[in-house]
């Protein structure tokens, strides 16, 4: 029975596949629920409604996710509860209003309902989004209708994905899913014909109702016992060998070697299709063909720099980007915790204390010498804040090996793990006060020195004004008043919290091999407490979005500066909560993100008002920021000119060449990110945050499809929220004269 005292935000739908369109819906649900202080829940059906309504055409291709998988994926995206309804004849005959009143408003105590643009409900699917909106208005329940999400120009839908899978277009289907399509089953004892031919396979029959890729051979990855193996898979009825099956069988060969998987539950992820199913006249011909399949799959895996899951232990996931192009490996371990003013400062200081010394190397000299002895391995710990979540990231950036075999990346990884797991503690099991005090002084001095740079200072002041006293106003670099009260004991408590209650995920990129990745996974599981089995740590509800509720504010401060510093913060009043921000990115690029932008071309080059003028967007704060340093007497002209550039985008009043240039520039940046391991890791980390992976070529496609009209619409979302201007004394005297 549902607890009706809990107010809920409800996402309605079947959510088969939990694709990138569903992800947008869930994001709207969880972020708005956080804002309204509701528990985000999904109301869905245990069995696909089409089995009851008789509209089986929709699922004749099978379903994409079983209940357990769907549940896992929804919770991974921040949903707290999944409410299952048995879709029966009686239920299907409910009138739309009856369903909304009895089941949603009363049954779930819903204060918010989020649905997709094409959602239908009630008897004969009579209820639609129009009706739902009206019902919401009458009953004081907020309704959000999520627009269609497009992938390469096509609306994303579960049925479109099923069709793509059925035709074997896995790459396209995976793009819409935001992950690789997966089938699961228990390995059966076969005839061991594959083994006799030299190609041992693990075989299983997938569940009857699952959507099966077209018969043929695929490049795949096999998951068993939390480990992932490169593989190649045949799916079909085995037409070339004795014992042809009626039901298609999945036969997967691990490319690294034979592992006995009989009786085990395995998952197989499909990357792309190699060929259709064929009938061979002899076993020799079959063997030749399989050899070629194995060679092609091996080559695909070796050259593919896709993000892959390498293994999962205690729900801690290790992902990897394998690349033969670099001499370096990077290991990154992230721990997410809820952010507040106290914690941000605690972890900022802890990140410094943990990398200043360690239990094994209890002085700066010993620790740095150890890193130097590993050919300059760089071990780092940093903190960042995204919405209301704090991320502590440990990295080891080091060479894969040295020619004389005296060093390998495992040494650098071990140093990192030792630094995390054996900190330099005193006899009371607290961090040593001497180290804490020194790092504290250093950090406070650095925070204070931010004020030395008055452009940064104007930004800090403007953002503080913009975010008010919410957790969003807390900056990742820490707060002096909190830092001053920290000691070794409090830091130890923060450390224990990080080890035992943080949500942990890790990634490795470069030339690493299985030995290293297995070792990393072992050590992760040794150090950190297991992640929650279902719902990932979702501080507030992660990613939390900022909704501002204040009037616009214009602030200024007179300081001893040569140049006036201008910071303008504009707020996205529509609150564009989306994982798909390429429109905003492109709009910003045109505004002031590049040298071919309107701010650069106009404010700097045409008007000669500023040497440095630029803009950037902070999507989770729903903010767009413009910054400039100008001569004091030009500040008002400059502010007007800066605002006017955004107005030009709203009106579409700029040359097409600027749009083309901005797209070229973004495309170039995205393509070039694949040449840098750290950029590749950042892309992985962003995917991990949103729980789905977007390929670079898909982002480029999204950019190419954006038109001037789209940007007019996006620019219109932004309204002036805060301006903060730091002026020099000349301006002060001028104001006095005017005043």
């Amino acid at each position, binding site marked *: 029975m549902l607890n009706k005292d809990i107010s809920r935000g409800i996402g309605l739908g079947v959510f088969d596949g939990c694709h990138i369109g569903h992800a947008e819906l869930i994001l709207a649900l969880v972020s708005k629920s956080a804002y309204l202080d509701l528990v985000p829940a999904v109301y869905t059906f245990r069995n696909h409604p089409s089995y009851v309504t008789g509209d089986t055409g929709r699922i004749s291709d099978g379903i994409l996710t079983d209940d357990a998988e769907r549940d896992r994926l929804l919770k991974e995206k921040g949903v707290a509860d999944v409410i299952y309804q048995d879709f029966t004849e009686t239920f299907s005959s409910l009138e739309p209003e009856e369903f909304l009143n009895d089941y949603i408003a009363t049954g779930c105590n819903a204060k918010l309902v989020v649905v997709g643009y094409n959602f239908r409900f009630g008897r004969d699917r009579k209820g639609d989004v129009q009706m739902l909106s009206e019902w919401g208005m009458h009953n004081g329940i907020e309704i959000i209708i999520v627009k269609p999400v497009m992938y390469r120009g096509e609306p994303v839908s579960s049925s479109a994905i099923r069709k793509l899978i059925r035709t074997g277009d896995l790459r396209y289907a995976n793009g819409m899913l935001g992950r690789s399509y997966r089938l699961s089953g228990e390995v059966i004892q076969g005839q061991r014909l594959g083994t006799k031919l030299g190609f041992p396979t693990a075989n299983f029959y997938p569940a009857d109702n699952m959507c099966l890729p077209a018969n043929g051979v695929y490049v795949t990855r096999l998951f068993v016992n939390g480990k992932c193996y490169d593989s190649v898979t045949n799916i079909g009825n085995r037409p070339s060998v004795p014992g042809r099956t009626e039901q298609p069988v999945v036969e997967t060969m691990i490319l690294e070697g034979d592992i006995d998987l009989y009786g085990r539950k395995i998952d197989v992820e499909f990357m792309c299709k190699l060929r259709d199913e064929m009938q061979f006249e002899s076993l020799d011909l079959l063997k030749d063909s399989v050899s070629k399949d194995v060679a092609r799959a091996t080559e695909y895996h070796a050259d593919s720099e896709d993000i892959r899951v390498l293994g999962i232990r205690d729900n801690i996931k290790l992902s990897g980007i394998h690349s033969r192009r670099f001499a370096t490996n990077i290991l990154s371990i992230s721990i997410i915790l809820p952010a507040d003013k106290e914690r941000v400062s605690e972890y900022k200081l802890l990140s410094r204390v943990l990398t200043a010394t360690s239990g094994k190397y209890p002085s700066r000299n010993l620790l740095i010498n150890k890193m130097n*002895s590993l050919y*300059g391995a760089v071990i780092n710990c940093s903190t960042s804040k995204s919405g209301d979540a704090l991320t502590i990231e440990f990295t080891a950036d080091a060479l894969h090996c040295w020619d004389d075999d005296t060093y390998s990346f495992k040494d650098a990884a071990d140093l990192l793990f030792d630094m995390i797991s054996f900190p330099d503690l005193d006899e009371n099991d607290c961090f040593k006060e001497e180290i804490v005090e020194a790092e504290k002084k250093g950090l406070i*001095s650095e925070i204070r020195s931010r004020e*030395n740079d008055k452009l940064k200072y104007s930004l800090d002041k403007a953002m503080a004004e913009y975010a008010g006293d919410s957790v969003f106003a807390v900056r990742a670099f820490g707060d002096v008043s909190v830092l001053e009260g920290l000691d070794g004991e409090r830091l130890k408590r923060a450390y224990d919290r990080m080890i035992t209650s943080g949500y942990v995920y890790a990634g490795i990129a470069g030339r690493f091999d299985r030995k290293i990745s297995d070792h990393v996974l072992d050590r992760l599981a040794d150090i950190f407490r297991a992640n929650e089995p279902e719902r990932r740590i979702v501080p507030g509800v992660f990613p939390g979005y900022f909704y501002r509720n204040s009037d616009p504010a214009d602030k200024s401060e007179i300081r001893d500066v040569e140049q006036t510093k201008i910071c303008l913060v504009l707020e996205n009043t529509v609150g564009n909560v989306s994982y798909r921000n390429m429109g905003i990115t492109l709009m910003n690029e045109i505004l002031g993100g590049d040298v071919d932008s309107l701010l650069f071309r106009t404010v*700097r080059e045409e008007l000669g008002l500023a040497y440095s003028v630029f803009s950037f967007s902070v999507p989770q704060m729903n903010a767009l920021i413009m910054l400039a340093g100008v001569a004091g007497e030009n500040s008002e002209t400059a502010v007007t000119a800066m605002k006017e550039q955004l107005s030009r985008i709203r009106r579409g009043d700029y040359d097409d060449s600027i749009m083309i240039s901005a797209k*070229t*520039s973004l495309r170039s940046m995205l393509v*070039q990110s694949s040449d*840098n391991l750290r950029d590749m890791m950042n892309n992985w980390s962003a995917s991990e945050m949103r729980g789905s992976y977007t390929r670079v070529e898909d982002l480029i496609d999204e950019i190419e499809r954006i038109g001037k009209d789209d940007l007019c619409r996006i620019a219109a979302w932004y309204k002036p929220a805060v301006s903060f201007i730091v002026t020099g004394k000349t301006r002060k005297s001028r104001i006095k004269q005017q005043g």
Partner: protein
Amino acid sequence: MRLLKTRHESGLRVNILPKSGFTKKFAGIYIPFGSVNTVVRYNGRSVRLPAGTAHYMEHCVFSKDEGGGLLSRLSAMGANANAFTSFDSTMYYFSSSENFREILDVYARAVMSPYLGQDRIESEREIIIQELGMYKDNADNSAFNELTANMYSRHPVRYDIGGTPDSVRRIRPVHLEAVKCTCYFPPSAVLTICGDVDLADVPDLSEYSVQNKTIDETAVNDLHFGTVNEPLSVLKRESRMYMDVAVGSFLLGFKNQQTAKLDAMTRSEFLRYKKRSELLLDTLLGEASDAFEYLFKRGLINDSFGVSAVYLNGASFIMIGGESNDPESACYEVRKILNEKLIEGPDDRSRNDFDLKVKMSTGDFVRSLDHVDSLGMMQSRMSVYDLDVFEYFGIYDNMDIDEAFNDLRSAVSDEASSEVYVFRKKR
């Protein structure tokens, strides 16, 4: 991986560093003309240039025109382009993953033929003055300029690379024209390209080569940058600046007493000297040193503390400093520690630390090869010494701490040092 060196028929020196498997390609055009080059021979006579001329020239290459300027044009083609002027050179560079050959052609032609119309020159003047204003608000930049002005009485290193608003106002078309004709043409430039590139990517710049110019032939091979008779002593021992900062800072500078000896060294000797000095200073004062730990624990420095050295023809110096809540005590302690270390000489710990720093530095070098742009930029910078990056790797062999100590002892002298303090100005 190896470097291919050639000289194009235009006279342009070309370095090609092929690195396949990467989409990014890099190109850097090195012009051996920077802010300290204050005199050029043009049409048979010496032209004295106001401070900031090299930087002004860089602006003129990128200056706006009807099409939005060179930067916009390059950006529209997919280039991530930029440039910087240093004391002794100007570097124009870009990276791109598409249209590489076309971009390089446009960029190289723009560098070789900057349009120096009065309109364009004037349009840049105010922007440059804005830029100088921005730097003036920066305490680190102001302290650095103060330090060089304290240490050098004659060498042009004493002036900001960008000049001053006054000197920028004095720059005339004739100054820029003189620079264009003596330095901005193929035989004096070095082009470095890196990535999936080959000789066919190099543009034909013959039309800009010396044969087509109507300038004094002698200016080509006999670039005269002015010689100065700079004393070994410093002009001023101390400066105190009061700025609107929250945290003060200090800079301690030592004028290198061996500058003349350095100027006479072969390129590889000089590079070895430079590297072992860097490694020794890092050993004595870097993050792993006991000096750093002592100063840090006392709250006298923060992570901004650092040591660096500048080596120019006729002007070499070492700088130590950073932010501090008590700049005077910090500077006093640093000087004291350095003097003590130099008297004591190497001990077991510093020997061990130094050897590990050599190891770290070699690892850093190998890691830098992972990036097309950093590799390309490293090679471009090597153009100053006419060396290739792989030769550079050889300088790590037989790095000797005793030799490094001797170098440093003979380089620094308290009498030839200067201190700059930045204090918080009362509001």
